[in-house]
Structure formats: C-alpha cells, structure tokens
C-alpha cells in the first residue's frame, strides 16, 4: 500500500525496546551530579542575595523547579491529548512522554523546599510577609481580599490538590500503558481514552491555577488571566522538544530504530513549529492587552521586564524564542531531518529555560516601584544556570531510572502497527 517495506513486528522482549545500557549507566552520574549542581547553584543563589535582591536564593530554586515541572506537565498533556483524539501516529513515542509524565510523583517531593519558603516571611512569596501591604501603601480592604486566596494554609492545600490530581493522572495513565505491555488488552486503551476528556479538563484547571500560584503570585498585585495559558504554552512546546530529543538520542543508541521513522520526526516538527507560534501568540496577546490598557497595576510586571538587563532579555525572547525557531522549523526539509530537528528541539528547550527565568527571576528584586531588576551579577547568573542545569540533570536521571525498568515503547498498544507504518501526505 505504501512505499515502505511491510513493517516487521518484533516480539515484546526485543532488546531494542528497552533502554540501551550505555544510557542506563548514565543514571547515577546524572542523579548525583545533578543533585550536587543543584545544591551548589541554590547555595550560590542564597549567597547572591542582597538588599536589592532579597529573594534570590529561593527564586533560583523555583526557576529550576518550574522548568522541569513544565517539561513534566507538558509530557502529561501530550499523553492525555493523544488519548483524547485517539491518535495513531504517536504510539511509538508515547512511552517516552509517559516516562517524563510519571516524574510528577518525585517532583511533588522536590516541591517541599518551595513550601518550606513559606515559613520565612517574604523570602519567596512576598504575600507571606505580614508587613507587605503597609510597607507598600496598599489598600487594606483590597489586601484583605487578596489574602483570602493568598494565605499559607490555602496555598499548601492547593499545592497538595494539584499534585494529587497530576500524580493521580500520571499514575493512572502510566499503569494503564505499562500493564498493557504485559496483557496486551485493548480495554486498557479504551479505558484511558474514556477518562482522557475529564483528565484534560482537570489538567488545564490545575495547571492554570498552579501557574497563578507559583508564578504569578510572586508579584501579588499583578494579574493576567492569560498567565496560566502562557505557562502551558511553554510546557507543551518544550514537551514536544523533549520527546524529539530523547527519541533521537535513543535511536542513536540503537533503541526503537525501526519503529520511529522520519515521519514521526516530521509530525513532532510540525507540532514544535505550531507551538512556537502558539507560545508567541499567547505571550503577545498577554502583552498587547496590558500594553494597550496601560493600567498601572497591570503594566507593572512588564515594566520591570522592559528595563535594564531584563529588557534586553525580553528582546532576546522575541527574537530567539519566536523569530529564529519560527523560520528555522518552518520548512518541511528541516522537519524531515531528525538530527536537525533534534538540534532545534535542544535550542528551544534552552529558550524555554530562558523564558521561565524571565518570568520568575525579576521578582527576586526588592519590590519597590521603579526598582530595576538585576540578574545578581556573575554569582547570580552562575547560580541560576547551575541550578537549572542541576535540576534538569536530576530530572533526566530520574527519567532514565524510570525508563530502565520498563520498555521505551508501548509494545502491545493496539495502534502500534498504525503508528509504525504512519506516513505524512
């Protein structure tokens, strides 16, 4: 029926379906090295704290954490959406997303330092500082209303709720998929598809509110209803990039070589291109409305990001997070070259880290109107980079640990054949 030779189906215990040993052996170095780098990075972050930057230490941790959290959440959404639309093409790469999706469970533990920061008043979230309203001359009535949402017990309760929802979804879909490797029952797929609708709704609400809680509430007087979608846009974009990179690395090490073809890279490339545009669209609509409305309490957030070094970083984001990858991944010829596509994916993953950094770090400054956010000098920059790199290494190490105990492809998914022979028009 097609130009491809008829696919050969390998038995479920084929060695190319498990994590190559060369990659599996990277687990411990990545976990250990990542943890050390993270601790040193965050420690340097605390060292970089000054009167102008009183929240630098916890902010570096939050930046690194939000980065890997968005990767993991994006992977979860990828899995949910494939089930929701009953996608056939993605079966061969879905397990890779699942391996990162299940990391939401250990990420719940890594969230503890952020909860821990609540005990130090105003050391990360300024709304925990009881003097914040009086120091900044805020209207007490309004601040009381804000405090009905922004208070430590409710915040902790919400965080637990988010992780219960995400963890529950991740475990449910992980179990369903891995159990199918053994049983091969079709009903598992049907069950996962059945729950994917409510799951996507639960996911979108929790993700949006988590973004409000952990990103937006750093500047408690600022609000943007678009912010949740903005974080989600970065998450889903980087998840596709992560899947592309990991698939490429796995293939380079000999796994799933016959299953994933250039067609899958082409499709991932289309999504990456599309979500680059989506990220731009969302971030621009958030900016345009606030820019046009020009209301002081709304513009404050962007104002801080339009001056000094962060002003330059905003321009860098426009050029390097939109224009360059937009033009770079536009062509079909690029998308059909896995090596090139993996390079673009790595590039966008780096830009996503810059994006998260741009969202969180300016709020580490002393929140007085007109105070230009700084990057904390050389020490601060190294701290930020080191903690993000460390956290990412930890994340990838955990992912490898999960993958080494399982197969890297859903071997008995009923749509596996459809996925292998999948071809773009």
């Amino acid at each position: 029926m097609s130009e491809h030779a008829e696919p050969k189906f390998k038995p479920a215990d084929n060695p190319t379906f498990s994590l190559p040993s060369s990659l599996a052996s990277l687990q411990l170095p990545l976990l250990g090295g990542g943890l050390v780098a993270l601790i040193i990075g965050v420690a340097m972050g605390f060292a970089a704290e000054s009167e102008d930057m009183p929240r630098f230490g916890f902010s570096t941790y939050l930046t690194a954490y939000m980065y890997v959290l968005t990767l993991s959440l994006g992977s979860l959404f990828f899995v949910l959406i494939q089930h929701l639309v009953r996608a056939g093409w993605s079966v061969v790469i879905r397990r890779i997303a699942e391996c990162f999706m299940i990391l939401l469970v250990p990420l719940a533990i890594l969230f503890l330092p952020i909860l821990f920061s609540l005990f130090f008043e105003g050391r990360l979230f300024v709304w925990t500082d009881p003097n914040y309203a009086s120091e900044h001359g805020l209207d007490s009535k309004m601040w009381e209303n804000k405090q009905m949402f922004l208070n430590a017990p409710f915040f902790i309760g919400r965080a637990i709720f988010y992780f219960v929802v995400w963890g529950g979804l991740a475990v449910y879909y992980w179990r369903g998929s891995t159990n199918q490797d053994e049983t091969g029952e079709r009903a598992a797929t049907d069950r996962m598809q059945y729950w994917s609708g409510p799951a996507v709704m639960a996911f979108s609400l929790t993700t949006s509110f988590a973004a409000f809680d952990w990103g937006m509430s750093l500047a408690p007087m600022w609000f943007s209803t678009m912010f949740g979608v903005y974080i989600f846009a970065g998450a889903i974009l980087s998840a596709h990039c992560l899947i592309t990179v990991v698939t490429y690395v796995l293939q380079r090490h000999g796994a799933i070589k016959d299953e994933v073809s250039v067609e899958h890279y082409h499709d991932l490339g289309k999504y990456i291109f599309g979500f680059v545009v989506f990220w731009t669209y969302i971030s621009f609509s958030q900016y345009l409305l606030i820019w046009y409305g020009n209301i002081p309490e709304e513009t404050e957030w962007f104002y801080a990001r339009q001056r000094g070094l962060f002003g330059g970083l905003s321009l860098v984001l426009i050029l390097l997070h939109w224009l360059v990858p937009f033009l770079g991944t536009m062509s079909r010829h690029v998308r059909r070259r896995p090596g090139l596509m993996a390079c673009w994916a790595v590039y966008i993953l780096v830009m996503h880290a810059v994006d998260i950094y741009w969202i969180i770090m300016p709020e580490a400054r002393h929140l007085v109107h007109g105070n230009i956010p700084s990057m904390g000098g050389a020490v601060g920059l190294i701290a930020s980079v080191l903690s993000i790199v460390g956290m990412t290494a930890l994340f990838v190490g955990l992912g490898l640990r999960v993958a080494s105990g399982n197969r890297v492809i859903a071997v008995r998914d009923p749509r596996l054949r459809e996925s292998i022979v999948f071809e773009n028009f």
Partner: protein
Amino acid sequence: MSDTKSEKIVHGMMAEFTTVDSLLSACRRIRDAGYTKTDAFTPFPVHGIDKALGIKPTVLPWICFFAGITGTCIALTMEIWMNGIDYRYIISGKPFISLPAFIPVAFELTILLASFGAFFGMWALNGLPRFSNPVFTDPRFDRATDDRFFLYIDAKDDRYDAAGVRSLLTDTGSDYINEVVEDDSPKAVPRPIYMIWGAAVAASIIPLLCVLLMRVTNSSQPRFHIFPDMDFSPAKDAQQTTSLFGDNRAMRPDVPGTVARGQLIGSLDVMTGIDVDSLQAMNAPRAERLVAAFMQDDQAAVAEEVTEVATEEEEQAEASVMQTTPWVKDNPLTVDQALLSRGQLQFGVYCSVCHGMDGRGNGLVNQRAQERGFDTWVPPSNMHEDTLYSDKYPDGKLFSTISNGIRKMPGYAGQITVQDRWAIVAYVRALQLSQNASLDSVPASRKDEVSQAVESAKKELQRQAEEAAQAAAAREEK
C-alpha cells in the same frame, strides 16, 4: 472537420486499473521509463503515490510563504504610513509608530495573503479555472471517483509515442487503455442560458426604473429612508441648543487650560513675553495670578496683570522696565527671512493703519484723526523713538504690548496668533535697524542703487523745498 476518430487531437493515454497495487506498480514502471507529465486518479488518497509517480514536491509552500511575507510588509507599511506619517492620530497616548498595536493587523494580513497565496496558487498550479478537461471524454473515467484507478500519460511528454505508451501500459497489466481525445461535444451555449442571461439583464434595469419613477412622480407617502440614522443623525449641529448642559449650548467651549493640538507654542514665557521664573522670584503673587489667568484662559485678567505693570512703569518714569517686570529680552523664535516676511505682512495688516508702513506713527488713521482734530486722540507711537529700541523696550514688552494693548491701542491677542505677534516684534526690530543703517551694511552690489536712490530722494526733497519756498514767496508777493 471529419468525424473519424483518428483525426481528432490526442491529449494523452489513459489506462484503467482495478487495484491500488497494480496502479502503484504501473506508476513505478512509467516513472522508471522516464515519463514526467503523468497523473494518477484514485477514489481515495493513496500513500506513496507521489513517490511512485515521481511527482516533485509542490512549490505551493513557497508561494504561500512569500505571499505571507508580502502581507506582513503591506500591513506594516500601510499602518506606519497611515498612522505614523500621513495622518498622525494620537490614540490613548501611544507613539505614532507603535508596533504592538500594529501586530494584530500585520498578523491578520499575513494570514489572509498566505491563504490567498495557497488558494489561488493552487488554482494556478492546477491550471484552474477551466470548464472541462479532455480526460472526461474517456467513457469509463467517471469511475475514478468510485471504484477504479486511472493512470494518465500526457501527449505533451517528451517521450510520448502512442504505440510505445500503449504497449508499456499493456505490459503493466491494464486491460483498458484508451486514447484521450479532444472533447467534440457541442460547444455552443444552449439557448435557455442566453434567455436566462437576457432576462437577468432586463430585470437588473427594474430597480433603476423604480428610482427614476420615484424621482419624477409625487407621492402622498413619506419618503422612504433606507438608512434612517444616516439621514437623521442624532449628533447636534453647530449653534443648536441642547438640554444636556446648563448653558443650553450644543457646541461646547474649550475646557479652561486646554491646549489644542498645534497650538502649544512653547513655554509660558513665549505666550506672555515675561520671564515667568524670574517674575516668580521677584513678585511671586503676581506670577501666580498671571499663570492662573492663563490657565483659565482669561484674557482680561492677563491684560490686567500686564497693564498694572505699565502704570507702575509710567510712575517710575525713567526706571528701567526690567526692574518692575522681567521681560523676555530676545525673540524666542528663530529670526530668519521667512519670519521677517511674515512679520512684515502682519505689520502691514494690523499695525500700519495707525503706525504707518514705516512705523513713524503716521498711518492713515492718525492722518484722519489729525485732520479732524479729535481732542481725545492720542497719536500712535513712533517706532523709531529711542525709548522703543530694544535696550529700553525689550522684545517681551513689545510682544506684551501687541498682545494686551497700551493706552488707546487695544490688545491684539484675539486677532494675531502668538507666532505672528513674535514675527511682528522681529519685523519692528528690523524696521528700527533699517532707519539707522549705514551704507556699509548694504551689500556692495546694491550700494550704487541705494546711493542713487538717496541722491534722487535728496534732489526730490530739495525740489520740494524750493517749490515750497517759491510758493511762499509768491504768497507773500500777493
């Protein structure tokens, strides 16, 4: 034209297949045989048929891409030209060329033109629109949308040779091979089409006839308004009354302190001729009253503030004017030929009637007043008196005098714009200079001309004096 089939124009060869696989293998055969102008027709999409036929990827994405870029450029150029250059319009205090506001339109136009590029580009690449394609002459071709697969080799192909193609297609296992020939079905447009078209044209005259009929006949019915809100605008016209405001005026006066666009000349110093900062230091209450009067747009109060100074000045007779009011010493506008010409024109219009074209205070009004001998008449100043030169009568004071008047002279602030008043000041200074200029300051090329004029003027004066003397002598003799 003969009716025999062999003489018809041949467009290509069509072969029918019953399965996808036989079609694909046939496609590969003819691709490998080197045919390029080929096409396959299937009732459903077939994966890999592009490759099997050797069809090159389409250039449509490129058309789409460049159409999109064109859209972006058109939108940005249009917006920058319209809002930033041609008709500058302040919208909520944003800059004229404000890119964030331009992006939605640029985005939409990019999408629009990219879609047009894709849609019309596809038409162009497919040779559309066309009414018919010769392949439809094949009697079995209709089944291409049903359950048969067809392969077509165009006669325009370089390798086309009827016998060779037929044998090649036979080799691929097709059991129905047919030459595609020119469609010989009648090309004449059926009569009913003409009739419908004619009826449509005839019917299209009806609305026009209705309009014409209505224009020339009287009717007892009220006029029919298609857009009543455009015929009867709820907006008030100038000079109408309204119950909305206490003063019943539909035309609203400016809010005090409003500065209309294009009317902001510069600082208050330029508007008053007084160095307001120095006045503040010298006489703070007066400065405040002056600024307040300006903010309220109260001409009378402004004039009063300045007149007060004038009386003070007269009392202190010889005291320097700078001691009572810190007047602006130099003309704040750039004095050039254009400004002087403007000043000359305005001086001619407003000032010369009293002060005379030469500024010596003997304008037509003065002449007439002298003739009539009005006892309340105060003669206009001679601009060439020492006390009116810039060392004693600073530019700012001259400006203020023009604006607010002095003695019998009324203020001209209502008639002459601020720039024109300063232009008059500049012209008066030039006029004063001209009366004291030495011949040295005249350009060498025109020195002769001037000295001749001076000579002839002297002669004329002499002649007049002699005439007068003769006349006097004649009168005495009588």
